[in-house]
C-alpha cells in the first residue's frame, strides 16, 4: 500500500525524534529523562504513521460529548490489534514518559540502563514504519 501524506509526515517526525534521542547519547546520557520522553514520541509517531498508512480512523468527539475514548486508549487498542507483540513495550514507554515528565525524583532514581532500554524500544518501533 502506498504511503499517504499523513503517514509520511508522521514517519518523518518519528525519524526526527529518533535522531534527537540518538544525539543525546542514550547509553551515557546527560539528560536521561529527555531520552525517555523522546523515545516515547518516536514510538507514538511510528504508530500514527502505521495507522495513517492503512487509513485507520481515530474517533473524534464533539466538545461536551461524555462517552469519549481518549486518544491514548485508542492508540493502545490500535497497537494491541495490529502489533500485539509491541503492546507491552508501548505502554511501558508511555508510563516511563509520563513519569519522566512529572516525577521530580525520576532523574535521580531511575536505573542507569533505563534510558537506553527505552531507546531500544523506540528502535523497535522504527522498524514497523
Amino acid at each position, binding site marked *: 500500500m502506498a504511503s499517504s501524506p499523513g503517514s509520511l509526515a508522521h514517519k518523518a517526525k518519528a525519524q526526527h525524534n529518533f535522531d534527537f534521542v540518538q544525539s543525546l547519547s542514550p547509553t551515557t546520557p546527560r539528560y536521561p529523562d529527555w531520552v525517555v520522553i523522546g523515545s516515547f514520541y518516536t514510538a507514538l509517531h511510528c504508530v500514527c504513521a502505521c495507522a495513517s498508512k492503512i487509513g485507520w480512523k481515530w474517533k473524534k468527539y464533539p466538545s461536551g460529548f*461524555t*462517552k*469519549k*475514548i*481518549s486518544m*491514548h*486508549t485508542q492508540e*493502545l*487498542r490500535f497497537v*494491541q490489534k495490529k502489533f500485539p507483540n509491541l*503492546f*507491552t513495550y508501548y*505502554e*511501558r514507554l508511555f*508510563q516511563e514518559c*509520563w*513519569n519522566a515528565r*512529572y*516525577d*521530580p*525524583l525520576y532523574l535521580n*532514581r*531511575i*536505573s542507569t540502563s*533505563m534510558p537506553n532500554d527505552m531507546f531500544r524500544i523506540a528502535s523497535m518501533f522504527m522498524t514497523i514504519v
Partner: protein
Amino acid sequence: MGQKVKEVSRSTLGCPSSRIDVCGRIVMERVRYARLEEELRRTKEEKEKYRFYFLTLLEKMKSSFCRYLIMQSFENSLRQISQVRSVHLFEEEENTMSFYIFLDKENWEAEEQIYKKYGDLLSDFPEFDIQIRLLRLWDRQTRDLLPSGGEKIFGE
C-alpha cells in the same frame, strides 16, 4: 491543563468488596466464555443465538454497576501482585477511568504483570476508556502523589 478528577469510592456500590470481586470475576468470565462460544459456533442459527446472548450481556455491562464490578475486579487482581503497594481508582474528565498503581521502586517483573493484566482488560472490554498510571514511591507516601490530595506533583 488542570484535570477534574474524583476518586471512586468502594462504598459507591454499598456492598462488601469481597462480594464485588466475586461478581466481577463472574461477569468477566461470562463475557470471555460468550466470546469463545461465538467464535466456535458454526451454524448461522447458533451464531445468532450467541450473538443475542453476547449483545445482551454487553448491554448489561454498560450499566454502571457492572462497570464498577469490572473495575473492582481488575483492582483486586492488581493487588495480588506482591510488589504493588496500593491502587486508587479515579474518574477523570471525559469519562476516563484511571488506576493509579504504586510500586516502591522500579520493578520490571511486576510492571510486566501489570501491563499484561491491563492488556487483557482492554481486550475484554473495548467499550471502556480505562487507563493506568504506574508510579514509584521511592520512599514517598502514596497520598503525596495522588491527584486528589497532598502536594500536586503529578498531573497534566
